């Protein structure tokens, strides 16, 4: 089970090939802009999170099934997933 950490708007297309069922995705930094429209995961079925600090800083209105977490929530997600991959 992997946590995929996306930090830019081009990260999602870059990591799709490696997503599998049970994985989670967290949007941080500029990737939170992806939360402003419905996110399409084409490989597997992943839970989507976004870092609230970066969402608030950029004034993004998240749509769809995105769960906001703070930094301690981000840490907790990493603790729950064996592999943390950054894209």
């Amino acid at each position, binding site marked *: 089970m992997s946590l995929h*950490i996306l*930090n*830019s708007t081009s*990260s999602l297309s870059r990591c799709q090939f490696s997503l599998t069922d049970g994985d989670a995705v967290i949007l*941080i*930094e*500029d990737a939170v802009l992806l939360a402003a429209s419905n996110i399409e995961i084409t490989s597997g079925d992943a839970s989507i999170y976004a870092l609230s*600090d970066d969402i608030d800083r950029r004034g993004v209105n998240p749509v769809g099934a995105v769960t906001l977490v*703070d*930094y*301690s929530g*981000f*840490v*907790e997600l*990493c*603790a729950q997933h064996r*592999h*943390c991959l*950054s894209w």
Partner: protein
Amino acid sequence: MSLSFALLVSGQPCTDQASLSALRFCKAALDSGHSVYRVFFFNDGVHCANRFITPPQDEISVPKQWQALQQEFAIDLVVCVSSALRRGIVDAKEAERYELGGHNMADGFTIGGLGQWVDACIQADRVVRFGSNTQ
């Protein structure tokens, strides 16, 4: 359950958000009762150790923030020697070895090889990287 983290920082102050995200993550991990085995500054991340970084007066320098964290929690901040040299980040020893006439590595950081990152990957429970948004 308390876990140990190995953090790789491959983005640089000013240019991208990686070093700031890593700082906040590191602090949150420590505040949550986890430990940080090592923070390894690699590729562009070596710039986090540049003591000459002088941000605008209303911002705090990234190297100083890492130093504060290092002083408070005694975390191991290691700068990758090969990434550092090619980017002009040098400690006193490397400056002398290459006769550079000056050094710019901030206190609290130590220079080391990739073997230290490999060791961190083996010893820590979790490995997390913070990179630039073009990497």
